[in-house]
């Protein structure tokens, strides 16, 4: 890439040395990986992360203030070291993109027994090569930012600082904070109070927060009708499955070549079986299901076929309508539109809060965020259980400061564009 009479390792260093140094960082990481295995994020929780962060910052600042005239520090704050560092991190991330990734709570023995396991590739984000490269890049990012403060100032500095300090904060905060992030799931029954949560390893803990589930509601989309293959159960036509969403009685649709007429609908049907006869009756009760009565006509049929179709509930099995020996009308399980938990939350310090929690609408209370996580899926809309996730992330403020600086930096970049004249070493 660069033509000069300079020999390798002769200053000023260029890309070649950059690739060698970055590869060295990668190799050192690989050696650590092979000897001691993956990093346990929990071991880097408070106060270890604070200490590492402080040492790292002190290191960067000392390099800058005492040694910035050294050729190697100068090199570490420029494009020649940046390009190889980004390239190698990119290569590692591409490997990660091609390798299935497992949560860091999965133990080594449970990972696929291939050579990739030893290299740490199945849990790349806690592997030494990845983390070392990130810190190497952070070092370059930090030194480059500090060096900029010694240069002539201009309006373009705004964009530079927003982007570089923003990325530095987001990356460092994210990495150091990962050891302090705690996630618990808590399953609460309607009408009762719960204060125990399960961590990601399946261990139960008493939490300084209690949730009382006052009511839990699920809203579903209208039921759909499909034609299925009796043998495989697959929705037809196989190459582009068709579905019809219920819009009202009296409508007609075409599904996989069949004319389907909607004759009747019950939102609260009970399915009553009497030896050979199946009856659908109104029964407004817990466990009642949706049922649609249809008439199906098809050129191959002598008579139209008529009957009820239902997707069942935890109480009733589903019901299909046979059109002929190969196809049937069926009603897939309805999609959930929205689920809401009305809760009263109590904290150890004495706060009481009533709130509605939904997906995308978590509740922030003290230093915790409570998310709507799941519910009892076997009971569907009759679930009496709501599952929450309680997350604490003390480093979030640092990461968010970085994210918002980066957002502003991106806006700056959008408006200002590149420098009109490319200059050496930025």
């Amino acid at each position, binding site marked *: 890439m660069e033509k000069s009479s300079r020999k390798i390792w002769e200053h000023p260093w260029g890309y070649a040395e950059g690739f060698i140094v970055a590869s060295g960082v990668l190799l050192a990481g690989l050696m650590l990986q092979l000897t001691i295995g993956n990093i346990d994020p929990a071991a880097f929780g408070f106060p270890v992360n604070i200490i590492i962060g402080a040492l790292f910052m002190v290191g960067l600042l000392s390099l800058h203030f005492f040694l910035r005239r050294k050729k190697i520090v100068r090199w570490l704050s420029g494009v020649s070291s940046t390009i190889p560092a980004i390239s190698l991190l990119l290569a590692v991330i591409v490997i990660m993109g091609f390798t299935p990734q497992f949560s860091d709570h999965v133990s080594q023995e449970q990972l696929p027994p291939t050579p990739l396991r030893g290299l740490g590739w199945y849990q790349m984000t806690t592997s030494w090569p990845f983390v070392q490269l990130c810190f190497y890049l952070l070092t370059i990012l930090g030194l480059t930012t500090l060096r900029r403060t010694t240069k002539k100032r201009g309006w373009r500095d705004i964009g530079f600082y927003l982007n570089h300090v923003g990325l530095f904060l987001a990356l460092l905060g994210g990495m150091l904070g990962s050891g302090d992030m705690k996630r618990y799931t808590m399953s609460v029954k309607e009408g009762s109070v719960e204060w125990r949560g399960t961590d990601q390893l399946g261990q139960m803990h008493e939490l300084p927060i209690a949730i009382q589930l006052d009511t839990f509601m699920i809203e579903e989309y209208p039921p759909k009708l499909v034609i299925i293959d009796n043998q495989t159960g697959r929705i037809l036509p196989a190459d582009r499955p068709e579905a019809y969403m219920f819009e009202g009685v009296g409508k007609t649709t075409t599904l996989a070549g069949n004319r389907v007429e909607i004759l009747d609908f019950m939102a609260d049907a009970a399915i009553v079986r009497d030896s050979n006869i199946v009856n659908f009756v109104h029964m407004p009760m817990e466990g009642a299901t949706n049922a649609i009565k249809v008439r199906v006509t098809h050129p191959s049929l002598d008579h139209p076929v008529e009957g009820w179709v239902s997707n069942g509930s935890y109480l009733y099995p589903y019901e299909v309508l046979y059109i002929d020996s190969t196809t049937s009308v069926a009603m897939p399980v309805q*999609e959930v539109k929205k689920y809401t938990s009305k809760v009263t939350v109590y904290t150890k310090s004495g706060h009481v809060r009533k709130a509605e929690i939904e*997906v995308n609408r978590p509740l922030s209370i003290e230093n915790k965020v409570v998310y709507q996580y799941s519910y009892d899926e076997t009971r569907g809309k009759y679930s009496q259980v709501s599952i929450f996730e309680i997350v604490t992330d003390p480093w979030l403020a640092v990461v968010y400061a970085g994210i918002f600086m980066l957002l502003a930096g991106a806006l700056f970049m959008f408006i200002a564009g590149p420098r009109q004249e490319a200059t050496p070493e930025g």
Partner: protein
Amino acid sequence: MSWDSFIYFSVAAVILWTAGALIALKGEKKTVPSLLTALGLAVFFAFILGLWFSLERPPLRTMGETRLWYSLFLPLAGLLTYRRWGYRWILSFTTVLSAVFIIVNITKPDIHNKVLMPALQSPWFAPHVIIYMFSYAILGAVTLIAIYYLVRESKISNKGRLMAMTDNLVYVGTALITMGMLMGAIWAKAAWGHYWSWDPKETWAAATWLGYLLYIHYRLRRKASNKTSMYILIVAFLMLQICWVGVNYLPSAQGRSVHTYTME
């Protein structure tokens, strides 16, 4: 408006874009090609709006729906570049690429219905996806320019000007993917409890982002080779394609991505 009318709107739009592109190739004045392209954009956008109303949700959920926005934004990016830089061939490039995505949507239509999963019901949904699609379109145009450069390097008279245009477009495109990514992070925190989970789509988004950062930093050097710069852009765009489409097929991502919203 249902998906069935897509073919009429898209064919009308492609005819208008093609007419604009052909006149741009010949003529001196920018007015007529610009107007024709804008008219095509209006026709195409009318379809998207109609679909939005009939689905009662933003048409941004399925791959086919994101292709729709891509097909819209490509000629828009082409038009803006044409107006600003005056390269006559840019409209032909963006028209052809847009037409390819339209043909994919006609021959392999997705299943469109009103269902919008709770995770997608967020004010971040539309800006996150639309900004991403717009950046993909700009970076798609950039890739066409890179290929054009590599194929015809010896015949290009003013390389400096072409590189300046490429730099400009990459800055705009990268600024937009940065915004799309960070909005996604803020949204993920609200929806899933964490701002970054290294989900396959996120991993490839990070790779794509680093790819364009590589270009931007490489170009800071006056000595930067034009050829290497253009190769970086092509590799970055390949990663972008894996991020957008490829993760649905990658064995490493099967059943692992929380970013999949297509259903049977």
